[in-house]
């Protein structure tokens, strides 16, 4: 039985170069600009007057629905961006050069830190209404999922077999037809899987982004995240438990009604070479149920007609009048390319100038080095966590993976656990830390990995199940056992899978540090020493230049770890398989 793994699309990118530095520069400048431009203007805004969250349980389903709705809007926008930006990067090499490094950097930006900056921007855009925070929340979900989706789609497009593309040209499919008949179907299995992974990660952010403190104001959006935040402030244990339960139901429904059927359906798009890797999945109950009714057939027919009309849409079929390439056209396109690179060069110069101005005006060198030091604390936490988790989950995962019937049952559960927003479980830990006066610097740490540790377990199981039977027999035949068996057989077999899982877990831990290093229960707030706590602190007090500083430094740390540790390990693993 072969299984999906939790992929990390970023690591499979081509080698990085100077363009990365440019992308980094651009991103950091972007934060600085937003911070700079919103520094002077603080819009009067009193959301508490607009809205209060009702802790009565009858409102809870409604709040849950709002949360889900937010999620779906973000997903639709993500899909649109995936199709456009992914395609652009795959088809145009000039665009590719800047899009890929930019995504690489943006993926390292801590989404929650980002939120505090964007929320100010959106609030200015829609003064006095909830639309501002609403947009900011959707934006946060968007940026937490869209990069991975774009990269996944881009990589699919890059691997379309040459002969399929040739067949499409021979039969004269238009670009529009090609996109829907070749590009999208080819990318479908990975697109669906990436969407699911991205959405799993997003639940965390949707919950976190609904209740946020900016400028010493608590902004609450109607939703399950703000419900639990209110419950925490009220020390209402029943409400906390209730919201955890409701979230559990929501994710269960989402998993069973949307993604199981979608993944089952996407199997048919797999290229024949993947035939051996096909997941022998049981038909999801929902599809089985619908198959019995006539509904699916009727819907299917409508869907067919619709897609046909869509793909063969008349006004998009029109061929370009002349295919002739005149000399003027060549010169024009060359000038355009030249212009493109010149403007990139100019942007670089502007960024450097602006950044140096901005940083030296508002932030002292001493403070920057202090923030760097805080980053060291958080990095140590991340490293220790990954190490401890591996110590626990590698043996556990291998044990499960070697027993296919157990693996089959356990993997969906882990997938579910990975999707469950861990921040909903924080209150339980917080309660204990505060009640028993535990050291917050140590005991807040596990929260960072609470949600992302599952990626490691998930991939170790998947890796173990892919070990060929023959190899297992061979190790038995040669009486391999004990440490030797682990060193020569098991660890090397699962290594690539483990690395991909660990990369994802580490990335998630950085992000989670922003909410995990500050614990609140009622009026008590405990703060650990770390970069995440720093970002939360400056966000709450509305100190935007420092928020920009914090984010930039976290971004640098994540990139640094990617290049120094993860990328080499990933390359090594990729070579062995």
């Amino acid at each position, binding site marked *: 039985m072969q299984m999906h793994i939790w992929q990390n699309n970023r690591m499979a990118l081509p080698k990085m170069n100077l363009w990365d530095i440019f992308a980094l520069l651009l991103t950091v400048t972007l934060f600085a600009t937003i911070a700079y431009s919103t520094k002077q203007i603080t819009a009067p805004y009193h959301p508490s007057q607009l809205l209060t969250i009702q802790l009565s349980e009858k409102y809870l389903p409604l709040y849950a629905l709002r949360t889900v709705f937010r999620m779906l809007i973000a997903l639709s926008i993500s899909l649109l961006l995936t199709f456009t930006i992914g395609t652009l990067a795959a088809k145009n090499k000039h665009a590719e050069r800047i899009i890929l490094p930019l995504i690489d950097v943006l993926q390292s930006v801590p989404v929650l830190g980002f939120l505090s900056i964007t929320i100010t921007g959106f609030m200015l855009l829609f003064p006095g209404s909830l639309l501002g925070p609403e947009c900011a929340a959707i934006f946060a979900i968007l940026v937490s999922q869209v990069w991975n989706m774009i990269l996944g789609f881009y990589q699919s497009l890059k691997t379309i*077999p040459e*002969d*399929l593309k*040739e*067949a499409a*040209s*021979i*039969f*004269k*499919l*238009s670009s529009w*037809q090609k996109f829907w*008949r*070749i590009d999208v*179907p*080819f990318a*479908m299995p990975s697109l669906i899987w990436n969407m699911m992974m991205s959405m799993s990660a997003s639940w965390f952010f949707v919950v976190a982004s609904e209740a946020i403190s900016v400028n010493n104001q608590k902004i609450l959006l109607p939703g399950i995240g703000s419900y639990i935040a209110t419950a925490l402030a009220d020390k209402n244990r029943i409400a906390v438990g209730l919201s955890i339960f409701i979230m559990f139901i929501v994710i269960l429904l989402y998993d069973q009604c949307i993604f199981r059927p979608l993944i089952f359906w996407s199997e*048919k*798009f*797999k*290229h*024949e070479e993947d*035939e051996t890797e096909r997941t022998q999945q049981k038909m999801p109950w929902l599809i089985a149920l619908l198959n019995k009714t006539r509904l699916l057939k009727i819907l299917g027919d409508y869907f067919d007609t619709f897609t*046909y009309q869509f*793909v*063969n849409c008349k006004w998009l*079929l029109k061929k370009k009048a002349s*295919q002739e390439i005149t000399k003027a056209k060549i010169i024009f396109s060359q000038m355009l390319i030249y212009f493109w690179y010149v403007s990139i060069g100019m942007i670089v110069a502007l960024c450097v100038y602006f950044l140096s101005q901005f940083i030296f005006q508002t932030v002292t060198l001493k403070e920057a080095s202090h923030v760097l030091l805080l980053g060291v604390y958080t990095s140590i936490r991340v490293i220790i966590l990954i190490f401890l988790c591996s110590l626990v989950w590698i043996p556990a995962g291998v044990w499960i993976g070697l027993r296919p019937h157990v693996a089959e049952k356990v993997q969906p559960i882990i997938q579910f656990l990975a999707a469950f927003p861990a921040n909903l479980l924080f209150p339980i830990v917080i309660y204990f830390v505060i009640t028993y006066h535990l050291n917050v610097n140590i005991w807040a740490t596990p929260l960072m990995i609470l949600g992302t540790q599952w990626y490691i377990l998930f991939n170790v199981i998947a890796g173990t199940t892919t070990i060929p039977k023959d190899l297992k027999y061979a190790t038995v035949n040669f009486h391999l056992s004990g440490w030797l068996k682990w060193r020569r057989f098991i660890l090397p077999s699962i290594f690539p899978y483990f690395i991909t899982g660990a990369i994802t877990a580490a990335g998630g831990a950085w992000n989670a540090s922003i909410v995990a290093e500050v614990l609140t229960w009622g009026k008590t707030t405990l703060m650990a020493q770390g970069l995440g706590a720093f970002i939360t602190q400056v966000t709450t007090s509305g100190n935007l230049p420092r928020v920009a500083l914090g984010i930039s430094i976290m971004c640098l740390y994540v990139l640094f770890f990617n290049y120094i540790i993860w990328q080499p390990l990933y390359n*090594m693993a990729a*070579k062995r398989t």
Partner: protein
Amino acid sequence: MANLIELRNIKKIFKKDAEQELLVLDNVSFSLKEGEILAIVGRSGSGKSTLLRIIAGLSKPSAGQALYQNEPITKPVPGISLVFQDFALMPWLTVLQNVELGLEALGVPRKERRQRALKAIDTIGLDGFESAFPKELSGGMQQRVGIARALVVEPEVLLMDEPFSSLDVLTADHLRSDLLDLWSDEKKKNNGILLVSHSIEEAILLADRIVVFGSNPGHVQAIVKVEIPHPRDETSPEFRKLVDRIYTLMTTEEKIIGKGKKEIDLGYRLPDAPISQLIGLIELIAEEQETDQAVDLPKIADELMLDIDDLLSLTEVLDILHLAKEAEGDIKLTEAGLQFEKADILLRKKIFATHLLMYVPLVRHIYNILNASHNQRVSKKHILTDLEEYLSKDDAQRVLRIIIEWGRYAELFAYDDSSEELNLENPE
């Protein structure tokens, strides 16, 4: 008879970078007449497939012209369709949808499209498979879909790129004869087929004329008319005679290019020849070669069931290494070749090593670099850069891979994949 396709002095150059160019096709001229089946045979890397792609409008010639109905081909045109070696079916479309795809692109109304597709599926013998997905079908059935898809747009010229080489022998035979039957109908409409073939027998079975391609760069070496009436019998003397003649054409050509006389240089495009196949071939030739008698190449190809271009790659390497001599469709082991055959494993390695150093400049080059360097190491990249002066990036990689395999076998040098370095060390 009028020409469907006419090629005039086609030249194809692949630009590697601003300075370096690689000549793939040189001065290719021939034509495809109405109602004709034309086959192209040649060694691997003689640019056959490149030429087919130029005719299909997928690639542009660097010089010269490819004409279809006296119009230059600059992009894919509706009158020409292509059957692919590995079928190139869309795995997410059913048989019917795959066949309909070309019509859909032409904007044929839905009803007519369905009708024509069903008819094409009928003709090629795919009845009952309309709703199947490609992966449910065997290779032979998949290629039938490929042919139906190509025929449904009613092309005047059908291009086929080694259409039967991915199939097993029995299936290929069956599909070939079905194609010939189908063709006798199409012929009345004066349509033509241009087929790149991997086997000389196949070419003779199907074609009215055979274009024999020479390599480095690809060029037309000869055009042979096949005047045996259908149905052709593979065992008939005239058939065998023609097979021999084409083999002779394909092997003598190498002499003119001058391998025997001129030493090969550093940038020689060494063909793919795995060690185990080379040794296997030597042993086979020794077995067949009774008392100084040269062995017939077609016979060996038959026995090994090897594609012509694969076999010629092997014999070419034996020739370069002076382990065998190939000429006029025959091959014969040299003194060294016979000695190699009789030797044990260690001695074989020694003989192979000596011959590599003597006759393959690239091996000599690597060996010298390794001995000259202070730590007896050299990076793979360094050698690749040297090779890329002569070869395309892909070819350079391929040639180096072959050289590393040979070098490892001969124990001349070792290669460490994790550091990507060649070295002189032996593993402890």
